[in-house]
């Protein structure tokens, strides 16, 4: 299979869906140039009516996607940084998420709100967040977070074809990450609600999202021969494939969840609770969660003290197996 960068995989998904369905359009601040390269070169092919640069107005960007979706279009709205979705919090969290339900299921909102998540670029508290938990917490929004180019392409195509609002977070530090993606003539679609076992193992189940999947694979590789780690990427947090996670925990008896958002009230707390509710009897050790400290993400080098690191995951794995795994 050919290998392409994550950013290009997303770009291909947009090209293919814009070509496939004339109701699809891309809207946002500077999407024509593409601040992160994800939406670059689309305007040359599809024109400014389908790849629309907007004024600096997040509320209006979200509102346009939200309104156009219920009126028959399939907008993809880009917010540049994931932090900025909160600027349009009313339109995304209050209006879009609740609209269909509040109106008795009589309107559909086939749209994608996408944005770049994640720290590691030392950009400080307003440009480094991974607001997974807030979206997962909000009924009415689906949430996709790809960790590989294959998933980036396949999940984005599913997101655009979904008849519901989907929040799609792509990770800043994975934009250039290369991986296998099917040829252009194959329809690469990754269904929502299907977790992917990125590495099979028998001793510990590690559930991770986004960039943390790569931290988990690295730690699992380093532990090879001392502990067998199964790495599961849920790929979508709503819907969440809890069955695959529970099945894995029934095999390993041990669970660690790693995500980049703030630990408190986070993705780890939710997944661990669901495992306890479903498979308490299967657990051989208290599950552990690894996430960002309960602090805003500072700028500069000190951010690594707040963001979850591979060493934190290793410590959590040691805690669930009850012994040191250092060589």
């Amino acid at each position, binding site marked *: 299979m050919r290998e392409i960068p994550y950013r290009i995989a997303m770009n291909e998904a947009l090209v293919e869906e814009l070509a496939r369905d004339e109701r699809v359009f891309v809207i946002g601040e500077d999407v024509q140039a*593409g601040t992160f390269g994800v939406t670059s070169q689309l305007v040359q092919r599809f024109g400014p009516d389908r790849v629309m*640069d*907007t004024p*600096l107005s997040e509320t209006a960007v979200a509102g346009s996607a939200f309104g156009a979706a219920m009126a028959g279009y399939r907008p993809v709205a880009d917010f540049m940084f994931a932090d900025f979705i909160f600027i349009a919090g009313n339109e995304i969290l209050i209006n879009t998420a609740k609209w269909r339900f509040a109106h008795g299921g009589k309107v559909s909102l086939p749209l994608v709100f996408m944005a770049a998540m994640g720290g590691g670029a030392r950009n*400080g*508290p307003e*440009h480094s967040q991974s607001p997974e938990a807030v979206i997962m917490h909000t009924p009415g929004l689906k949430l996709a977070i790809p960790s590989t180019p294959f998933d980036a392409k396949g999940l984005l195509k599913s997101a655009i074809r979904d008849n519901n609002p989907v929040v799609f977070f792509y990770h800043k530090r994975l934009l250039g990450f290369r991986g296998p993606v099917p040829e252009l003539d194959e329809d690469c679609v990754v269904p929502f609600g299907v977790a992917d076992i990125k590495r099979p193992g028998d001793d510990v189940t590690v559930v991770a999202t986004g960039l943390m999947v790569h931290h988990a694979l690295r730690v699992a590789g380093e532990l090879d021969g001392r502990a067998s780690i199964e790495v599961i990427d849920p790929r979508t947090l709503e819907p969440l494939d809890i069955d695959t996670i529970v099945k894995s925990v029934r095999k390993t008896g041990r669970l660690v969840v790693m995500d980049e958002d703030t630990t408190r009230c986070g993705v780890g707390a939710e997944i661990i609770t669901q495992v306890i509710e479903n498979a308490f009897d299967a657990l051989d050790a208290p599950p552990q969660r690894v996430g960002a400290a309960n602090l805003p993400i500072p700028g500069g080098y000190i951010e690594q*003290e707040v963001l979850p690191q591979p060493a934190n995951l290793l410590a959590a794995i040691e805690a669930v197996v009850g012994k040191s795994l250092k060589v």
Partner: protein
Amino acid sequence: MTLTRDQLKTLYTNLSRSRRMDEVMVQGLADGKAVSFFHSGQGEEAVGVGGCTFLRPDDFVYSHHRGHGLSHIISKGGSPAAFIAEHYGKATGACNGLGAIHFVDPSLGFFGFSGTIGSAFPVTLGWALAAKKNGRQQVAVCFFGDGASNRGTLHEAMNMASVMKLPVVWVCHNNLYAQFMPLADAFPNEDIASFGVPYCMPTTIVDGQDVVAVHEAVQAAVARARAGEGPSIVECKTYRFRAHAEGAPDVSHYQLRPPEEVAAWRKRDPLLLFRQRLLEDEILSETEIERIDAEAAAEMEAAEKFAMESPSPVPAIFETALFSE
């Protein structure tokens, strides 16, 4: 309101310092010394310098995105060393190394800054409300760009400031682009000052490359605000010389900014224009100007050295940074 020779010299000094400091920041990022990003303000310094040099030390200022506010900050007495050290991720930085692109100095009326564009308006309202309540005749000066004027927050804040007669001066850097978005495609009127009409504010539109014109317009609005007569809007027509951010393409939408437009504005460099005027009016000699430029370069070199030699922050700062006692 004729400026004295010393005041004119101060304005030139702050322009020279701002340009040199911006160049140091651009180089610092290119060399990998600065963390995060930098949005150069070269070409727009006259707005910060003219707007801030003669404010009262206790006036509130919301500094601007361009240059991360450096021309506003140092013109009002802020420390270049603290600014650079923060951008270099050091414990001696203005925000103790936690903010990277942010700056704060409450003793000088700089209570912070946000990178989410449009945040300028509501918080300025709060500062002005405090000023009105405390009776100290402080003024809150809010610098914002043409891009920020596309945000809804502008309307809520300008409306409320007007109906409450709050001591605010809204100062727009209209540099014709919001990142890659040209103003003509973002706003149906070429003057941001047109918001003065719906919100019943006096408006002034000035050449933002003319530091004296900016100074006079802002000071007139400040005097009005201090006298309890409410907010005004000052629009400064300006231009950024470099790309939106270092490393970003210098484009309008997805194509290069028109070279003839860039060249025409570069001829209107605020530093060169003011230097020429001071020479023609025999306010400063070539020698004096060279001395000022050399002193600015030495000051910024020392500030950069301080930043480089400063220690990185340690996690102990987390204990006191999140909540007050």
